[in-house]
């Protein structure tokens, strides 16, 4: 293709500032004492320390997985600091006592931690480095019996729920990064929706990495009791730094009988510069377990990170349960993404639907990796997978790795894939109608992603569309 589609200059990352705040950071390095120290700092009950230690010992025997289609220099796990919390006079977690610097940080990110100013109907838990700094709308939610708080608070206030559900979907031994997270996770969000309750507002967690050379290892646990409903949003950003930072999170969702959980992510961690210097290594394990007649729906828009390695999955445990995965993954410059999903059909009449849209620009490499597994007992399981890739320019790549395994011959599995190139003719058509090249690309790409965007809550859909435009800015000349 000719001149128009090869020039690459990425727009400045808008969230790349850092906040200068005194922090309680433990020195780099990882051993049992560090695990104990983290647990002690958080005042955890013995069962949790035990669990962490088991995870740590397991992790030591594991090796970092290298089956994904991404390359990066070896990570030195002893060079990372595993805990950093802003040091403030007042205890964290109370919005009234929030350090003004932190409040300012979230304002700059467009997340005012002030209930009057918040987007109506969205409750936010703000996680700053290793700790949650505040959760909004807690009282309002409490009226419905909903628990929405930091993970640390949940451990203190609701240890029974934590003990019952922690690791019930992603065991600490699940994989290398999940084991690491289980050993050193610092904070995150916890959600419990009681039986029959429809959560009256969107719940969201906003993750911010601030400190340098620290890893972020948060853990989110969502339990939707029988017949309940919740829609949960997750957003993330980090400062621009020239070193790579590790983010290894775990998200577990439990949807009990007849419950519905929608989990949406707009991931915009710092992606590194055009030469691939810096950026977040995003190694995330997200999984839900769906019981009878329940539904778990993952929607993700992945625009950031130097490396993305994540496969939000659903274990379709109960009969008639449904799993959905809607994904947009964009890579530009030197970004690499290996993302997809796993749908494990265990119950009868289980259904899964996968829509993956991969967009590659610059020298970006985008891989879809998806597993659909139908277990012997899963009569009449159905899966539909649609996997579309779009290429912008000639230096990028799109790859598709579907793994399909049906152990029950009543299963219906459909897989459709397509690859298209954003055409000079399409761009020219829109330019002829008065749009700039960037607007044209943004419009074509948004159209390509429409099936996924329509799954996002309204405000998020707009944000996602803008982010996409920013990520791809400069990808055509």
């Amino acid at each position, binding site marked *: 293709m*000719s*001149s*128009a589609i090869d020039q690459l200059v990425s727009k400045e990352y808008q969230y790349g500032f850092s906040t200068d705040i005194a922090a309680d950071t433990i020195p780099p390095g990882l051993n049992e004492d560090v695990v104990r120290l983290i647990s002690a700092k958080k005042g955890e009950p013995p069962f949790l320390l035990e669990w962490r230690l088991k995870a740590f010992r397991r992790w030591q025997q594991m090796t970092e997985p290298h089956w994904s289609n991404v390359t990066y220099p070896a990570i030195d796990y002893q060079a990372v600091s595993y805990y950093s919390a802003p040091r403030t006079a007042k205890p964290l977690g109370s919005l009234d006592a929030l350090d003004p610097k932190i409040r300012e940080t979230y304002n700059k990110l467009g997340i005012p931690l002030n209930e009057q100013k918040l987007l109506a109907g969205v409750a936010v838990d703000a996680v700053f480095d290793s700790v949650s700094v505040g959760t909004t709308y807690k009282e309002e939610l409490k009226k419905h019996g909903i628990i929405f708080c930091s993970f640390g608070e949940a451990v203190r206030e609701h240890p029974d729920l934590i003990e019952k559900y922690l690791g019930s979907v992603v065991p600490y031994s699940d994989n290398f990064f999940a084991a690491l997270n289980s050993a050193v996770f610092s904070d995150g969000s916890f959600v419990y929706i009681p039986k029959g309750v429809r959560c009256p507002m969107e719940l969201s967690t906003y993750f911010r990495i601030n400190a340098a050379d620290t890893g972020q290892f948060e853990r989110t646990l969502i339990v939707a009791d029988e017949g309940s409903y919740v829609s949960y949003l997750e957003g993330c950003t980090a400062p621009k730094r020239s070193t790579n930072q590790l983010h290894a999170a775990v998200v577990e969702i439990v949807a009990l009988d007849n419950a519905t959980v929608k989990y949406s992510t707009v991931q915009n961690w710092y992606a590194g510069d055009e030469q691939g210097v810096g950026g977040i290594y995003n190694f995330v394990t997200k999984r839900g377990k769906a019981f009878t007649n329940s539904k778990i729906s993952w929607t993700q828009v992945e625009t950031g990170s130097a490396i993305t390695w994540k496969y939000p999955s659903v274990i379709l445990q109960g009969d008639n349960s449904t799993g959905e995965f809607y994904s947009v993954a964009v890579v530009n410059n030197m970004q690499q993404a290996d993302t997809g999903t796993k749908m494990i059909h265990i119950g009868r009449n289980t259904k899964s639907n996968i829509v993956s849209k991969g967009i590659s620009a610059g020298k970006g490499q985008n891989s879809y990796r998806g597993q659909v597994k139908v277990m012997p007992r899963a009569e009449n399981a159905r899966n539909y997978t649609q996997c579309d890739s779009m290429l912008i320019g000639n230096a990028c790549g799109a790859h598709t790795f579907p793994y399909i395994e049906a152990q029950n011959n009543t299963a219906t599995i459909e897989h459709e894939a397509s690859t298209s190139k954003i*055409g*000079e*003719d*399409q761009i*020219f*058509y*829109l*330019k*002829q*109608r*008065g*749009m*700039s090249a960037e*607007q044209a690309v943004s*419009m*074509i790409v*948004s*159209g*390509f*992603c*429409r*099936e996924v965007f329509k799954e996002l809550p309204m405000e998020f859909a707009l944000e996602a569309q803008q982010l996409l435009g920013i990520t791809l800015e400069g990808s055509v000349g």
Partner: protein
Amino acid sequence: MLVITNLHANVGDKEILKGISLTVNAGEVHAIMGPNGSGKSTLAQVLAGHPGYEVTGGTVEYEGQDLLAMEPEARAHAGVFLAFQYPIEIPGVSNAYFMRTAYNEVRKARGLEEVDPMDFLDIMTEKLKLVEMDEAMLQRSVNSGFSGGEKKRNEILQMAVLEPKLAILDETDSGLDIDALRIVANGVNKLKRPDTATIVVTHYQRLLEYIVPDFVHVLAGGRIVKSGGKELALELEAKGYDWLLDEPAAVGG
């Protein structure tokens, strides 16, 4: 309004336009006819600024400006509109959103306020009538899965929305049945004003019964080989093009 002087253009190494000269004044309708492959679409695309064509010589002046130096979107802002011979599909983007964005971009470039979706809908309702199109078309993805005729009508709808000064219609009539042809031609005629001009590229005399040209030019082998009044179209209809191809190149009018 438009002065094309000795225009040469290539695709790759192949010269397609071999010295075109043509002057179009406000209020005029020019028809460009000629055999397949003679360079009609190339001329239209070059005027609109398609990056796949390389201009190797000549000049194009549009309202006193050097048209060839302008980006395609700047040409659009300045009132140049091309109805494509093969309209492009943009899956997943609604026709309404696409046209509103185009409309607002052109307005912004002219220092006018943007129009919000509700007001735009009112504008569209009027424009749809002009080309006798259904409102349902607005919610469909741009040209995706449209029939040939629907695509052509959609082009004229866009023209109606953008109200260009210089409209270039590239074979807008091909693929239209007689009713659709009449609707499209009526639309174009209603959009004509004393300060606008139209270049109609067509194979057939048929369209010119509805959109009556002031001048007819025959393009063959990348040159304008004959120019005349509307009666030339009738002559071409009767005699075909062959008799012209041996004549020396005429200077366009």
